[in-house]
């Protein structure tokens, strides 16, 4: 994408003017976004992002500069200015690149550029039609389609020089059901690190009908009761609970500065013995996967928690220095406009032994959260909150009436220990994760699991455990 000698010269400049490590990140990304509302294609936008980010370290300090003036002269100036901002002495200036060849683990069959917009519009219309005609209560359907082809060149003064190409696509389906003046929405957004063959491998109609089904179910649901009771969280996007409540606290960005509740706890029991958790950036064609991270390190499968014992963190290069640990291939960023830091890729709780039927049957009273919405966490205290997009009450071991408006709150460290049943139906769900290095694609995941007691917030009064 750019001449090796030029990249070498720019990196040498970072060392000559004070850095003890320099990194070069070039990105050339072509993306398409289309929107369809109420059966009409309303927006179509496509374009090209192109720029360079240069990062320099001296000890634990780092400087990041980015520009889209990609000329030799400007890049050398940017590198020099960045290094000089560190106020450090360093005399080395030799950079030798190794051969950074690797095998592409994520085959792409249909590149976005090979299909014209009509192909995308047909897919959107199919999804629209399925969702809209699902039920007469569906009032509105909104479809967003996106694909992107990101080419990167990552090089550093350790001698890495890698080029990679990441292709991703996702379709987001939002169905809205209306009854009188009330509205409820249902959402599904399947995606992958894959070309447009993704839509040959899945049936988008299934997802569209599911989004519509959620909206129709919730428009007929009563308000969720509030209080503390057992909560069963289903698989796939239900894993957002682990992502928010624990995953962020296992990222080196909060562990290195000891602002995470999980800092200094390696080897300790932090979760129920039923919990084993992974971050795996290598899953073939998965939404959060990459061959290499955005620091040029190959991604890996990292054991985070083994039968409740904390075994690992997700580590990037800079925080790895503070922690005296190697990178786990977790340095990620939204684009060249962000310095990378440790982030999740595909992060999930592993499958357990129970069947979903057993978990429901073993619950006398509680909330069953079939689909979760988003949430957030305070990494210092571990306090989290999540929205439940589709919920049901469970009574006497059976799924009962649907309930809307439920929010789950708690502390990550406590909830991990309160997981008392883990199902055998592991599945992953797609999301966008926002943090210091921007918004990035990440998979969450888990099998169905049960938390013995959680605070559930809803608009209805206190839940009565003894109701018939």
């Amino acid at each position, binding site marked *: 994408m750019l001449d090796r000698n030029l990249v070498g010269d720019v990196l040498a400049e970072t060392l000559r003017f004070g850095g003890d490590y320099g990194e070069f990140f070039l990105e050339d990304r072509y993306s398409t976004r*289309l929107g369809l*509302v109420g059966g*009409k*294609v*309303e927006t*179509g*936008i*496509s*374009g*090209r*992002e*192109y*720029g360079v980010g240069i990062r320099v370290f001296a000890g634990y*300090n*780092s*400087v*990041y*500069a*980015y*520009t*889209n*003036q990609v000329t030799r002269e400007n890049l050398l100036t*940017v590198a020099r200015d960045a290094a000089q*901002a560190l106020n450090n002495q360093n005399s080395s200036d030799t950079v030798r690149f190794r051969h950074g060849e690797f095998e592409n683990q994520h085959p792409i069959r249909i590149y976005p550029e090979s299909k014209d*917009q*009509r192909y995308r*519009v047909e897919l959107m219309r199919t999804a629209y039609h399925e969702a809209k005609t699902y039920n007469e209560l569906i*009032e*509105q359907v909104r479809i967003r389609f996106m694909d992107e082809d990101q080419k990167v060149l990552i090089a550093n003064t350790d001698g890495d020089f890698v080029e990679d190409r990441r292709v991703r696509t996702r379709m987001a389906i939002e169905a*809205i059901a*209306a009854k009188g003046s009330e*509205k*409820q*929405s249902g959402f599904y957004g399947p995606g992958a690190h894959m070309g447009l063959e993704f839509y040959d491998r899945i049936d988008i109609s299934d997802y569209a009908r599911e989004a519509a089904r959620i909206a129709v179910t919730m428009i007929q649901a009563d308000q*969720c009761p*509030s*209080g*503390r009771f057992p909560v069963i969280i289903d698989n796939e996007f239900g894993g957002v609970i682990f992502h928010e409540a624990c995953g962020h606290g296992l990222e080196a960005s909060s562990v290195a*500065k000891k*602002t995470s509740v999980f800092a200094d706890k390696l080897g300790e029991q932090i979760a129920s013995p039923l919990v084993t958790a992974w971050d795996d950036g290598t899953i073939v064609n998965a939404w959060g996967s990459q061959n290499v991270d955005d620091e040029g390190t190959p991604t890996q499968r990292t054991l985070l928690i083994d039968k409740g014992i904390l075994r690992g963190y997700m580590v990037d290069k800079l925080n790895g220095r503070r922690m005296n640990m190697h990178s786990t291939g977790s340095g990620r960023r939204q684009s060249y*406009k962000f310095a990378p830091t440790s982030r999740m890729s595909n992060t999930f709780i592993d499958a357990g032994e129970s069947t979903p039927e057993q978990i429901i049957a073993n619950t006398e009273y509680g909330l069953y959260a079939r689909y979760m919405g*988003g*949430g*957030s966490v305070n990494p*210092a*205290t571990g*306090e*989290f*909150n*999540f*929205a439940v997009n589709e919920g049901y009450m469970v009574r006497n071991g059976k799924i009962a009436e649907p309930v809307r408006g*439920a*929010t789950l*709150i708690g502390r990550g460290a406590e909830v991990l220990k309160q997981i008392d049943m883990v199902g055998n139906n592991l599945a992953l769900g797609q999301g966008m994760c926002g943090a210091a290095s921007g918004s990035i694609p990440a998979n969450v995941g888990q099998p169905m699991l049960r938390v013995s007691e959680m*605070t559930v*917030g*809803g*608009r*209805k*009064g206190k839940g009565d455990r003894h109701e018939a």
Partner: protein
Amino acid sequence: MKLDEFKNKTFAMAKDKGFDAVELYNQSANQVQIKVFQGQVDDFARADTGGYSFRGLFNGRMGYAFTEILDGEAVSMVVEDAKANALIIDETEQSPIFGGSEKYPQYDGYSPELAAVSTEDQIDFTRELEAKALAADKRVKTVSNCAFVYGESKTGLVNSRRLELSQKGNGCYCWLSVVVVDQGETRSAFKFKSERDFAALDANALAEEAVGEAIGQLGANSVASGAYPVILRNQAAASLLAAFAGIFSAENVHKNFSLLKGKLGRQIANSQITIIDDPLLPDGLYSTPFDAEGVAARRKAIVNDGTLETYLHNLKSAARDKVESTGNAVKHSYKSEVSVAPTNLFFQNGGAGFDQLVQTLDSGLIITELQGTHAGTNPVSGDFSLAANGYLVNKGEIVSPVDQITVAGNFLEMFHNVEAVGNDLDFGLPGGSMIGSPSLLINGLAIAGK
């Protein structure tokens, strides 16, 4: 290739390809971000970027394309892409490429004094912010985030109807997150401030506020579930308004995504409520004399004494409702299409001081922070259910801190239940718009706790 050359070439090629009218919108930004940890600048970032957004009407349909690089392919890429994107559009109601408003307001969003502040002074301020927080109380364990950002931006719009507009702005903001520990209990608090006057940033006051908030939460407990009268403190109220800001967009009303559909001219709130959108707010981070379609910007009351006076419009939604655009066309960046959004949106101050609100509340809760507003709010139904922190008030006195509760309600119902409006207007974290509120006293929100 320079902008002028790029413009001339794209406009000429677009004409050849059959576009009826075209426009080029460009944005460039320079930014410095400083982060301090334990007295050291541990993160320093400098940015210099920009991009070009091209759009045009082809057979009455609007197509868009953008690029960050002006290489040899850029001209044909944006023209061909915009045409391909226009060809799939079904929507026949489109904004015209705009010939210009009669008059544009004077607005100067650029402070040469702020631009002249040296990087050294910016670093010193950021260091001081952290130092003041660490020194404020011995229970402060760490300042997990302490950052300062200075930014300059330029926006330009030029189109085939000979409209040519540009503006330049700058601003700075800072934030800190403090972590306090006492007897094994950890609490944190966050404080943010934006300014166009560097000298007005008061490190000591910001640090003390953040530390005071975190210390104040020590020993917090949940409360019994039930309906409580609640004071939503200014930034908490602002974060709720931010989550629901989309309901004022005429675009959302037309698409059935807004719960304000059919409510124009009706009383939708207690008569103490007035909601303003002011693109000319002095020192507003999103202040601008013209919107993303080139329409002159103006201050307007969306809700006036409880009555819904107007939706927010761009040219397209205004034409559909046969009204004038409110100048709220927005492009979130050069990578986005034109939509509708507020600029600086806020509940207008009422008359009550915060202490007076607490006296009026008598017994109930003060909510200082709402979490997860992106997830726990349903902008289509107006329902919200959010994790919250705050204080328990008994007989007009704050008695103890509160955490691990959720507060639930409906945004429009809440409008009617506002009993008093404070006079402490403050703005929350910017996110495409700047959104603010004074503290609001609200009767009967559902609290879930113990």
